[in-house]
């Protein structure tokens, strides 16, 4: 189906809800744009924008746009790989698989970088010899409505990672918000996306609409706050394994895990085994873990990567080097979340530059 | 038998650690000491020099059973210095928090600490073997109280959401709606509790107590009010130091309080009820009547009934407040420091809890004075014991011990609270 123009997002939200999706999108909460379930388009953060820099996020009044802000601390990861999920229960020698919770969720407002992150996770969880069926179920229950970025933040660098700002693949629908007149250009990226679009009140997009949308993405690309030079980065990080820079970074790093927690591609988990003291059964739960915790690499009672320097090195090297060996893609998609949400304001783009 | 010594090494089923020592000779008690040997923790010294915003969090740590009481008395004393009043929905939230603590603390005492005395068990858990549904009811009721504290304060013990001027985050109506649902059920459990405890067998004892409690024109005073005495005396909380004087007694790490010159007054459930029973919610009043409580109750054993009635009141009022709750515009009113002295008192589950602070103009605390309920009651509890034991000195020591522990438990003393205010070192020589 060719691109069309929508006046309002309410019919879209309504249709999705009618199909049994919980529509989840950006809202304002606690002074930050957060994902939450939407009742109608009125819940969207119209008129809000954000300022993001290393270790700092502030909401501010912006242009009269519905999507006039950049990445939020939430990403699709919370839905594809929830922070905690039960794997199985064990009772009297019988393992009982916990039914996978895969709610039908329509994510409205994911960005090109988020789609790239989902593609990276797909490779991690579905690309190997032992695909993760729970991930597959949750992934398949998602309906993705992307929004092309108009206002990147100070910590964004998707343009240099080649993952944005325009969504080209991996979505069911993609919207571009146009300012004057205020409209949404909508394109379908899947069959079900096309079917849904056809049901919405719309008119065909004209060349002016298409040009306006292109202009949005062009301007956004030019306004990226940050940049990474990928040339030779994979080899460089391996060569720099013994660099003194790691120690210097470690002196500033809190090893608090925030970067890995907000990163939409970081996938490391651990499991917790619990016995039900009162009842007698046992349960195994999987939860987010991070290469920054000591328990993560414990071996024979001591962590393999005991120093903060070794743990930071693991994270950055994984993202930009060994991830490529393992999965044929970078582990970073340039969303800048780890930069903004690092309480110490450590900036991976800057550290990569220093590790030249 | 002319000499007799009763020694209870560690009082059980009370909060904190205390002991009892009674010496008798020729049918007369020569020495009776409710000993609070719990080591002092010097909170008043600890607060000196700290920022005026910190007492709610620090003094909460005096007692894990009634942290909210400490937070509320501290907030009000300090807000008084800064000239701030907290009312409207923020005051309602404070009341909710406090009611939650009352429900939790009273129910704990009723079911797990006190009732086993009447039914003859060493503990609530042992009692559950024969009376499981009853104990389960108690636990469910207690849980409702904890859930209310957690919904407003973040967690049941040492809530984190309290600050001078209000809260860090005001719960939404949606946050509180499910709590109200559970409280409605809890209210029924509380009514059942009243009829359950009303049926206990109470020794026919009456003491001529001098009661002290807060009073409030519009409500059954809990969060704030004017101290009043059953003899008709009434004084603003600012005058507390003129009326209540603490003195050190050698056998205790807690201070004994004197009211208007003489020791031996009582604060707590019986006092509140005696001074304020007319202000109980209609449902609680009804429950009190059906349990056979008159306007005043002087039988310490029946304090369990009064507590149960107060739980009904707390559930009932909490439901009413949540139903009428409107979210405040801001979670707290701004508070800026200024030099001065402030007094605050509120009704902890165990009685009136008074705080006084002196703050300099930079907002540093220069002086603190905290008078917890059990320190006030200690002398009176000793009198109860004397009256109980003296006529019965020929009973076996084991039985006397049992009776003494029960008599102490009647007043739900909180020894952790009482022990932490001494600015002196113990001499262990």
């Amino acid at each position, binding site marked *: 189906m060719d691109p069309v123009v929508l006046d309002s997002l309410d019919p879209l939200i309504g249709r999705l809800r009618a199909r049994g999706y919980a529509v989840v999108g950006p809202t304002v909460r606690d002074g930050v744009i957060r994902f939450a379930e939407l009742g109608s388009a009125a819940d969207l953060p119209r008129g809000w924008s954000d300022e993001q820099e290393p270790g700092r996020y502030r909401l501010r009044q912006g242009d009269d746009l519905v999507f006039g802000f950049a990445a939020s601390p939430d990403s699709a990861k919370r839905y594809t790989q929830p922070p905690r999920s039960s*794997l*199985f229960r*064990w009772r009297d*020698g*019988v*393992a009982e*698989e916990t039914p996978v919770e895969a709610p039908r969720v329509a994510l409205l407002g994911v960005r090109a970088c988020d789609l790239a992150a989902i593609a990276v996770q797909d490779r*991690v*969880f579905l690309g*190997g*010899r*032992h695909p*993760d069926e729970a991930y597959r179920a949750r992934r398949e229950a998602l309906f993705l409505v992307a929004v092309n970025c108009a206002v990147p933040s100070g910590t964004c660098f998707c343009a240099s990672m080649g993952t944005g700002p325009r969504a080209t693949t991996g979505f069911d629908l993609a919207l571009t918000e146009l300012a004057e007149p205020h409209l949404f250009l909508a394109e379908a990226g899947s069959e079900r996306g096309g079917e849904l679009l056809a049901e919405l009140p719309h008119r065909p997009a004209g060349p002016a609409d298409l040009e306006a949308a292109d202009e949005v993405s062009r301007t956004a690309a030019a306004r990226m706050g940050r940049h990474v030079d990928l040339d030779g980065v994979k080899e460089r990080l*391996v060569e720099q*394994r*013994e660099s003194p820079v790691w120690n210097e970074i470690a002196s500033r790093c809190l090893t608090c895990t925030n970067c890995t927690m907000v990163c939409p591609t970081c*996938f*490391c*988990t*651990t*499991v917790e*085994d*619990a*016995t039900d003291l009162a009842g007698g*059964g*046992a349960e*195994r739960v*999987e939860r987010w*873990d991070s*290469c920054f915790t000591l328990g*993560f*690499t*414990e*071996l*024979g*009672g001591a962590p*393999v*990567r*005991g*120093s903060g*320097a*070794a743990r930071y090195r*693991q994270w950055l*090297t*994984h993202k930009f*080097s*060994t991830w490529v*060996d*393992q999965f044929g893609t970078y582990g970073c998609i340039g969303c800048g979340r780890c930069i903004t949400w690092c309480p110490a304001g450590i900036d991976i783009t800057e550290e990569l530059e220093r590790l030249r | 038998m002319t000499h007799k010594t009763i020694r209870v090494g560690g009082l059980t089923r009370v909060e904190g650690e205390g002991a009892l020592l009674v010496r008798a000779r020729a049918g007369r008690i020569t020495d009776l000491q409710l000993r609070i040997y719990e080591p002092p923790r010097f909170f008043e010294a600890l607060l000196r020099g700290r920022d005026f915003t910190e007492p709610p969090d620090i003094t909460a740590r005096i007692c894990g059973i009634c942290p909210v009481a400490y937070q509320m008395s501290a907030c009000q004393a300090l807000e008084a210095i800064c000239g701030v009043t907290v009312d409207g929905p923020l005051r309602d939230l404070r009341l909710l928090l406090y009611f939650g603590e009352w429900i939790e603390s009273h129910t704990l005492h009723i079911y797990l600490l006190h009732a086993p005395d009447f039914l003859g068990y060493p503990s609530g858990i042992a009692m559950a073997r024969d009376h499981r549904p009853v104990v389960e009811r108690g636990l469910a009721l207690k849980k409702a109280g904890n859930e209310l504290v957690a919904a407003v304060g973040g967690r049941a013990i040492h809530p984190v959401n309290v600050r001078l001027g209000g809260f860090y985050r005001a719960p939404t109506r949606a946050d509180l709606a499910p709590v109200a649902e559970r409280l409605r059920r809890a209210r029924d459990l509380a009514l059942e509790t009243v009829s359950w405890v009303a049926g206990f067998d109470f020794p026919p004892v009456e003491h001529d107590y001098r009661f002290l409690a807060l009073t409030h024109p519009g409500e059954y005073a809990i969060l704030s009010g004017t101290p009043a005495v059953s003899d008709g005396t009434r004084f603003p909380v600012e005058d507390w130091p003129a009326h209540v004087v603490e003195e050190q007694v050698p056998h205790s790490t807690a201070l004994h309080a004197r009211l208007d010159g003489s020791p031996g007054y009582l604060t707590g459930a019986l006092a509140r009820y005696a001074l304020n029973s007319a202000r109980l919610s209609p449902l609680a009043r009804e429950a009190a009547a059906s349990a056979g409580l008159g306007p005043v109750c002087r039988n310490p054993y029946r304090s369990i009934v009064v507590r149960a009635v107060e739980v009904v009141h707390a559930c009932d009022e909490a439901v009413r407040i949540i139903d009428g709750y409107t979210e405040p515009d801001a979670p707290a009113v701004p508070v800026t420091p200024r030099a001065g002295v402030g007094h605050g008192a509120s009704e902890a589950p165990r009685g009136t809890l008074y705080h006084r602070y002196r703050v300099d103009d930079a907002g540093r605390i220069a002086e603190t004075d905290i008078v917890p309920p059990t320190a006030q009651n200690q002398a009176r509890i000793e009198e109860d014991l004397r009256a109980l034991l003296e006529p019965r000195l020929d009973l076996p020591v084991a039985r006397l011990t049992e009776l003494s522990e029960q008599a102490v438990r009647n007043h739900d003393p909180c020894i952790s609270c009482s022990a932490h205010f001494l600015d002196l070192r113990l001499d262990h020589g």
Partner: protein
Amino acid sequence: MIPTPYRVRSRRPDRADTVTLTLEPVEGACPPFLPGQFTMIYAPGVGEIPISISGHARSGGYLQTIRAVGAVSRALCGVRVGDVVGVRGPYGTHWDLAATAGMDVVVAAGGLGLAPLRPVIRELAAHGARYGRISLIAGTRTPATLLYPRELARWARDFDVLVTVDHPDRAWKGPVGLITKLVDRIVFDPARTCAFVCGPEIMMRATAERLMGRGVPAHRIAVSLERNMKCGIGLCGHCQLGPLFACADGPVLGYDRVAALMEVKQL
């Protein structure tokens, strides 16, 4: 990632802190395994750990030799015959014996490293004719911690078996000290030798380096990586060593692929 219930068919204490369990599925048969592979064994309510398969029981079950070092291994060592535990796998890469036909073989084990190598040694003992000269060298802390002493004695009839200990007791007459010394004492033709090395990381490095010093190329030295594993199938991230997942790319890997990685501290 759900474990399959396996019944403990037999439990044989090997040493003070080590037992060998025979595990068979409660229903059905054990999936086939290759020497060097491991399973994830779940002690109900306690946890799940990777344990190598140390052999095939005659009945078809897995033999798994476990040393009690922590909570899960202690729980597994403490099971009784008839108990049910959970098993996933077998997972991971294997010792490639097929590529070894006709060559000299050096098997080097440090401590518990003998367990994952046992299927290899059993194969060598059973079909010695298929290979060139065979040597087994092993190191252990004390004579009392030496695994499979009776089997070692039996194997010694078929090929060279040398054992060294760190701390000898009075009865010990054999070599004392590092296993690398044994590398110098065995006979093989470096140009046509394959080595299988398993043990603590430093032991594997030292042994591999010594073998290379004697002319064995790195790619013909196989080592087995030990890292903390939670999923065992490349999804949880714990067991990474640089570009490798020990569970999926390993545990058995050519030394040529890991030599440089093992040199880096805290990688």
